Each structure stands twice: as C-alpha cells, then as structure tokens.
C-alpha cells in the first residue's frame, strides 16, 4: 500500500469526519436556537405515537399517496439509500476490517447493492433532467450532489474488492471522494438526513397530539375527545 493511499484512508478520512461532526454540532446548535411552541390543548391522540409513526413513514410506502401511486420511484429511493449505506460502510470496512472483503460473497453483495444504487442514481438524474417540475426547482447543488453520488457509487463498486495488488487508483478515488463528501455534505442538500428527524418529529408531534396520525388508531368516541388526556402545565386543577 502506498503512503498516499494509507494517508487518504486514515488521517484524511478522520480529519474530514471530524470536520463534518464539528459542522453538524454547530448546525444543531443553530437549529435549537429557534424556539418551538408549547402545546396548550388537550390531546385527542398521542404525541409519542404520532412521532413514532411520522419517523417510520420512510419505511411505509403505502402510507402516502405519492409513494403508493409510484412504487417504482419508491424502489429507486430504497435502492439508492441502501447503496449509500453500503458505500459508507465500505469506507470503514476497508481500512479497519479489511478481512471482511476477503470473503468473495460479501464483496459481490456490496457490489450488487452499490451497483444497483449507481443505476438508481442515473435514473434519478435522468428524471431530474427530463421532468419539467424538477428542472424548474433544481439548483446546481441538486445536480452536483446527485452526480457526486453517482461517481461515489462507481468508485465504491470498484473499490470494495480492496485489491491493491491489482490497482490502487480505485481506492484512492473512492477515499478521495469520501473525504470530499465529508467536507461538502454539511453545506449541501445531502444533509437532509440531519433534518429528517426534526421535520418528522415536529409534524408527528403536532398531528399525533391531534389524533390525525397514526390514522385509524384513535378511538372514535366523544369520551376520548372530550376528556382531558393531558393536563397543560400551570393548570392548577
């Protein structure tokens, strides 16, 4: 292994990861600076159930008309994000548990997942270029983030065999892209995974409290609706 590959697999990755973590901490502090309003009404449902249901929405394509009507798009989403998970896992496995990729079946599994994600990424790019709605709303960041992901998948596909005797460049490309990502991600749309828990939490909390979600689980009785199920703070009674 060359010094360059060793450096880029280890120190560079750790530095980039630390940078990402630091920026995210600042970002979270920034988000928490904004106030969240206090709920003052009697509950008709359950905030906890609403939050759980809202967070689980990602795994419930039947729950939304938008994904229910277009399962193909949802399948692309699943494949794409499984590829992300596999590629990120590979960035840790290669330097810290290389024996895992000595198992041929594991390599093939990772290549299958990452390769499928590559194809899903290409389909998503085509959709973004062809669909007039997406063309109108897309920014440079939307395009570049997607193209970078496609390149990341391609590099990951070639890197997971971890065969440095044959060629180091796939690994250098893969880890180079990974380091770049770690620095770029906090400032791009790719950070949406950081916001997902927040948007889902607040939507789930509000709609869960009102009994709007989870759908069909709230007992339909005036009693439930009309009796106090939670006492607002400061209520002396």
């Amino acid at each position, binding site marked *: 292994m060359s010094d360059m590959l060793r450096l880029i697999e280890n120190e560079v990755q750790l530095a980039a990861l630390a940078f990402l973590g630091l920026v995210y901490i600042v970002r979270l502090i920034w*988000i*928490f600076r*904004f*106030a*969240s*309003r*206090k*709920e*003052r*009404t*009697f509950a008709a*449902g359950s905030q906890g159930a609403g939050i759980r249901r809202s967070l689980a*929405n*990602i795994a419930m394509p039947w729950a*939304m*008309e*938008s*994904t229910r*009507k*277009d399962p193909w*798009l949802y399948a692309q*989403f699943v494949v794409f994000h499984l590829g992300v998970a596999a590629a990120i896992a590979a960035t840790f496995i290669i330097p810290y548990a290389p024996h895992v990729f000595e198992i041929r079946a594991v390599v093939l599994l990772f290549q299958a997942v990452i390769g499928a994600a590559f194809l899903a990424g290409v389909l998503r790019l085509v959709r973004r270029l062809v*669909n*007039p*709605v*997406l*063309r*109108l*709303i*897309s*920014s*440079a*960041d*939307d395009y570049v983030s997607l193209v970078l992901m496609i390149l990341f998948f391609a590099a990951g596909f070639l890197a997971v065999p971890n065969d440095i005797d044959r060629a180091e460049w796939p690994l250098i490309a893969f880890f180079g892209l990974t380091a770049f990502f770690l620095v770029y991600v906090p*400032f*791009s*749309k790719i950070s*949406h995974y950081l*916001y*997902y828990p*927040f*948007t*889902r939490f*607040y*939507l*789930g909390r*509000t709609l869960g409290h*009102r009994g*709007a979600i989870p*759908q069909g689980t*709230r007992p*339909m009785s*005036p009693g439930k*609706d*009309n*009796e*106090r199920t939670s006492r*607002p703070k*400061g*209520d002396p009674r």
Partner: protein
Amino acid sequence: MAGGRLQTYDPAGDNVRRFLELLAGRLTRPLTVSLTACVHCGLCAESCHYFLARPDDPTMTPVWKADQIRKVFKRHIDWTGRILPWWVKAGSVHDDEDLNRLKNIVFGSCSACRRCTYNCPMGVDTGLLVRFTRGLLTELGVVPEGVFNVSRDQWETGNQMAVSEQDYLETLEWMRDEVRAELGDDKVDIPIDRPDCDILYTINPREIKFDPRPIAQAAKIFHVAGESWTLPRWGWDQTNFGLFSGDDRLGAWVARNVYEAAERLRAKRIVISECGHGYRSTRWEGYTWAGFDQRVPTESVVVTLKRHLDQGRISVDPSRNAEGVTFHDSCNIARSGDLVEEPRDVLRRVCSDFREMTPNRRENYCCTGGGGLLSMAEYRPLRLEVAKIKAEQLRATGAKYVCTMCHNCIDGLNDVIKHYKLPMKVVQVLELVSKALVLPEKGGRG
C-alpha cells in the same frame, strides 16, 4: 375596538427591509427545519389539485410555491445561500413588486390544504410555510383586499362579517320562534349569556348573516336532547381569519374572546358549530396563538350530536334521508384536526344511502375554497379552473347530496357544483340529523 392593530400597506415604507426583519424574527424551529429539509424530489406535485388541474405548469406545484419563501430564507438566514446564493438558487425580494408577486403565490395559488404535507417523504410542512409567509405579508398590508376587509371587520366587531349585536340577537330570537312553531312548544329557547351551562355554543357569522337555519337545527336537537346550553353575547364567533391571513395576533384575540366567554359563563364545554377553519382555530391553533392553556373540553357540534345518538338522547329515522349522500372532509378538520370517523358515524345513522367519495378522509381534495380563497375575488378564475379535480371527484359518487361540516366548504362546493353543472346539493350534518330527528311525543322529554 382593535382596528388599530391591522396594518395597512405603506407604499412609501421600506417594506422589503421590514419583510426581511419579520422573516428573521418569526422563524420557529418547525418552520426552520421545513425550510431546510426539502430535497426537491417533486413528490408533492401530484398531491396538489392546482398542479393536477394544470399539469403543464410547474409553478403550480407545492415545492415551487414553498421555494419562493425558501429561497429568501436561504439568501438571508441559511449558510450556503448567504455565501453562494446561485449554488442553491437562493434569492431575495428587492421591491414591493416582488412582495406582491409573493402575495399572489401564497394567497392566490394555494388553499393551504396540507395535502402536500401528508405526501412529503421528508415531512416538510408546506401548509405551515404558506401560512407563515402570508403572516409576514399581512404585517405589511400586502394582502388581497378581501382578506384585509374581513380581517378589519373581525378586529373591529369581533366577528368576521361585522354582524351587529342587534342583528345577532334578533336572528337568534327569530330562529327560536321558528323552532317553537315547528315543535309547537313554547319552552324551546336559544339562551344568551346563561351561566353554568354544559355547553357554550359558538357559531359562524354566516349563520347569522346568510343562512340561520343551522342555528334553528341545533336549537331543535339540543332541545330534544335536553341539553343545557347557551350562546354568549360576546365571543360567539368561532371563525378566525387569523388562520388564513397568518396573523397570529388576530388569531389570538378572536380565539381568546371565545375562551374568555366560556370562563365568564362558567360553561363546562365549548361546542363549535360546523366550520372547518373555525374548528381548527378554536380547538387547536387558538390556544397556542393566545398563549391560553385549555381548561374546558372544546369540540365540534358533530361530536355533540354523536354523543346524543350514543346516549340515546335523540332518536333518528334514516329513511327520511333516503337519497344518496356522500361526505366531503374539510381539510382543516381532517388533515389539521382529528375528526374523520365521527361525522361518518353520524351520517351512517341518519342516512340510508351513505357513500364515500374517492379519495376520502385525510386524502380528500380541498373544496377549493379553503385558505380564505372565497374572500379573494381576484383569484376566483384560477380557483374554479383547478376545481375540475374536485368536480370529477364529486361527479363520480353519483350522490344527490354532498355533506360537509364546514361553512367554507359549503360555499366552495356550491361554486364547484354551479360552475361544473353537477346535479348535487350541499348539506351539513346538522341539517341531515335535524331531518331524521324523531320528535318525542308530547309529554315526553323536552
């Protein structure tokens, strides 16, 4: 009374600077994350009746509409957009014309029905963003004339249709006399300001100004059910234009009028007549706007009717509503509230041919008059154009009646029915229950 608090547009004012100050000052955490989380996947597009009706116009999509405030947020508040605005399509408002354009988007091409919110994989609450933007513009007086006029009326008179106290009291007396004549019973009353009742009944000013029959229907049913109830002399308007204009101060003041009326009269429960935005405002949002901790149960009259049926306090004969009835879920009640099965339970008991429309419940399409759009005449042509989605949905039911528990929806649906020449009539739950009501024999209860 409170008219001074309504902002008028000042053409000589530095409105852009003020807009940006308000934007920065009013952001909450749920708003901020909804502004940052959108990934531009476009899945919201086909949940919106505006886009479904105009599929070749990407500016009708929820994401594009939300992006018009999102890009200002990115340019002035968020990180990357402040440094590299072109990279994330961040942008600003430069003059009053930009503010006016924003007004036409958030007031004119969105009924804030929240259907897109339920269809966003990320949980971005576009309905919330639209209301927030409306609120910023309202603070500058950059609002449609109808919104301004109704808000002014509500600030000045305590009700959105500027009903005088004399008109209010006389209409209630008139309806009381109607019910007395119908039942042949002089004990029937529509009490005003009676303390210590079980129910404080609050209504929509439309019931005084245009169609008082729901008051009579409620009075008749309450009388037969032996309900202890009253209307307040002040604080009777459960509607709230603050919800539509985004003006939390108006929302707080109107809602507080109702809550304080309940406290003043020591009512055990607030009951809201059939009104979608009134229900959402009084049951849910108003307590937050007013900073008022809820102390008494607050419910829709439909829930009250259901309780009367459950407890056997009223009897009904569904054969009196024999023709096909379908139910239209109000956005503010179903998607931003809790009542979905309750009205259906009542309708199944009082109608012999109840049929669902498709989609229904929380996936139902807006009546197209939501979000205060009925008061904005300048957007009527677009509203009626995109109403073809609703018209097709209604027509497919083959029902003779479409029932809704919302006054806005009544007018919205009536416009759709008239414009698309549908062979239907709009009714409310109270009307159907009243028609099916089996009156006790003389000497019985009541």
